[in-house]
């Protein structure tokens, strides 16, 4: 199915995700789990940022580095998760 207007020209036809783009069986739950966990980690990072700002404004800026390390670990974890999930496993392997 190609992108562009439908034959009658009344609505936009967007190509549906092809079979190849859909996760293989069993991967869908993994993706959902990673997404839920990732959103939780984002909330923690936001909290770390507010604590860092609070410390900085209170003049305790030298203690912020520990929070930056924690936030960086979450970010690196996210990158690794995206890399792992973007690998397409061989079906039947």
């Amino acid at each position, binding site marked *: 199915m190609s992108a562009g207007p439908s034959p009658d020209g009344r609505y936009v036809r967007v190509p549906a995700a092809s079979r190849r783009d859909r996760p293989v069986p069993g991967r869908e739950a993994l*993706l959902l789990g990673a997404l839920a966990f*990732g959103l939780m980690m984002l909330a923690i990072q936001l909290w770390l940022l507010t604590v860092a700002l609070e410390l900085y*404004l209170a003049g305790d800026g030298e203690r912020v*580095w520990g929070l930056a390390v924690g*936030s960086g670990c979450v970010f690196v974890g996210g990158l690794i998760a995206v890399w792992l999930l973007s690998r397409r496993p061989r079906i039947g392997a």
Partner: protein
Amino acid sequence: MTEARERAAARPHDRDERWRSDFPYDWEADASVSRRDLLRLAVITSGALFAGTLLLSLLGRRDDRRRGSPRAIPGAAALPAGEALYFKYPGEDDQAVLLNIEGTGFVAYSQKCTHLSCSVYYRAEKGELICPCHDGKFDPRTGEPTAGPPQRRLPRITLEQRGGELFAIEEAP
């Protein structure tokens, strides 16, 4: 009767047509929003939050937030115990308050409330520093917040006696 049935049968189709004109997109477009894309977006957001925290960390290491140079506080020597004197420090536009507390001696703070920067003043009869904007209260001995929305202590001004005069040395958060 037959005509009425035909009209009734035609109605859902009409509704469908109206819906199409209000929302002229294909249903299948929904399938193109993938969880992978959302996960990537979450990772980008995570990177932005990390960058913010890292920036604060670097600023905290580099930035020395102490400011001001030694300056005499006029009229400080004559300040009776339990009273306050308002003066300008470290800059000409910065308000500060000097307190002579019984049993503690002289202490000075910036008058800028750590909540939203309103001016804090000393209420002698209750012995507390208050911010009238949101009823924030600070302990005059330490500058720590005791009530209201402020979460951080008032910036403290270091004092020193030099030849019978009281000097403000520097302001530190």
